[in-house]
């Protein structure tokens, strides 16, 4: 459904993505792992057309979405992106955050959007918080609202950008629970994450990014147990040492 061919991105002279090839099939979850600065976030932003790529092609449902001059708006309406820092709109209540895209971008009737918003918030344990402003919510609740906001527009695929990295450890579980549930529903997902245990459990494929290149990819069991690439091995060893400390 989502296909990347030779995606390359420069910030000035610096190459941040060096020819990424990647395929995410319908209902599949692909985890992107790698150190901070390895290009995971940039890759997701490029797929959602928030950044322009300098070379390569991205296909959504077989159609190239990175043709120069093409309108990015319809593409973004078919993808959902959730940010590390939630990026909720602080001047709007939880419910208003959730329905904005449905009403303005999808042209859904306001009453329908409100009904759908209520139902989704309820499903993800946020009933009763509809009229609170984001700053009254915990980080975990805010991130759940952000996921609901992305789901409201019924995206073909969900792009998750380190959605638990800004959370206190005890709040990580409630957000991962939602993603697990979405995976069960058959949602197609591309997940940039530092949660290795979670990647191992949920992902169908794990890609290890190093300096803007996928240096190793495979089934989670293989990547985490017998990494072949020396930099993957180094990364995982460092991470495990950090977890123990």
């Amino acid at each position: 459904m989502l296909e990347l061919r030779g995606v390359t991105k420069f910030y000035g002279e610096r190459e941040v993505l060096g020819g990424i090839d990647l395929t995410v099939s319908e209902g599949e979850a692909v985890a992107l792992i790698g150190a901070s600065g390895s290009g995971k976030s940039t890759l997701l932003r490029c797929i959602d057309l928030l950044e322009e790529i300098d070379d390569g092609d991205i296909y959504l449902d077989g159609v190239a979405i990175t043709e120069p001059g093409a309108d990015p708006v319809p593409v973004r309406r078919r993808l959902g992106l959730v940010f590390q820092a939630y990026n909720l709109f602080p001047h709007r209540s939880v419910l208003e955050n959730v329905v904005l895209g449905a009403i303005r971008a999808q042209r859904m009737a306001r009453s329908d959007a409100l009904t759908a918003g209520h139902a989704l918030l309820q499903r993800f344990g946020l009933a009763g918080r509809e009229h609170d402003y984001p700053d009254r919510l915990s980080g975990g609740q805010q991130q759940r609202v952000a996921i609901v906001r992305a789901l409201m527009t019924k995206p073909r695929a969900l792009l998750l950008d380190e959605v638990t990295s800004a959370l206190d450890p005890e709040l990580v579980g409630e957000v991962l629970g939602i993603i697990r549930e979405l995976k069960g529903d058959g949602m197609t997902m591309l997940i940039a994450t530092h949660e290795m245990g979670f990647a191992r459990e949920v992902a169908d494929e794990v890609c290890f990014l190093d300096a803007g290149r996928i240096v190793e990819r495979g089934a989670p069991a293989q990547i985490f147990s017998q990494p072949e690439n020396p930099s993957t091995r180094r990364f995982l060893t460092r991470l495990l040492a950090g977890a123990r400390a």
Partner: protein
Amino acid sequence: MSATSTVVVIGGLVAALVLSPGWRTIRQTYLSWHYFRQILPSLPGAFWLDARIFLIVEAVVLALGLLIAVVRTVRAPVLFPVRLACAAFVDLMRGIPLLILLYVVGFGVPALGFSFLPTDEPVLAGAALAMCYSAYVSEVFRAGIVSIHPSQPAAALALGLTRPQALRHVVVPQAARRVVPPLLNDFIGLTKDVALVSVLGPQEIVRVAQISSDFSFNYTPYIAAAAIYLLLTLPLIRIVDRQQRRALRRQNAVVML
């Protein structure tokens, strides 16, 4: 303690005024009860003209200021000439004295002789005020817009909103809330600068005071006009201060972002 010191300071200032060598002249020319009573009935009516000019100009300034600010912050290449024109307008309006602008617009526009242009002095004066203040207010709005973190429009775009929609529903509402205190400050300035309209001749409060004192050689009417002004501006200033304190409290309440 503070009450005592206040009495001492104010008493000292009053004493300095009353004991000054020129106190008799000052009292007669600036604080004459006779002239005060004579001019007072004609001032509220004259002030109503200032108030109307202020209210209309204020509405125009808010709309025009926001429009200029938005045009100057969007990056669409098509709008480059408009952006350039807006930047030039803002620089020019902030760079010349308001008094000169009033003369240029007030006497220059009617001199053009176009029948569709207004020749009414209050309208022309209001236009000059609106031009000047739109420039300042657009800078206030612009500061508010650029202070919104790029992650906010990014989140709006990711939802599938267009750039104008992201501006309209996400960026501008947050920016406007942030700049309320400085905006109110500019509006206190505007209430007082409306008095400059008098140079073009309309019978507003300063003009009425001036005509009276031109006949009597007594300046009490100006003091009376100032008193009327304070009735409007002092409450406004209190409101602004309260807004600013609230904004500060809100800012300090934000621990994490």
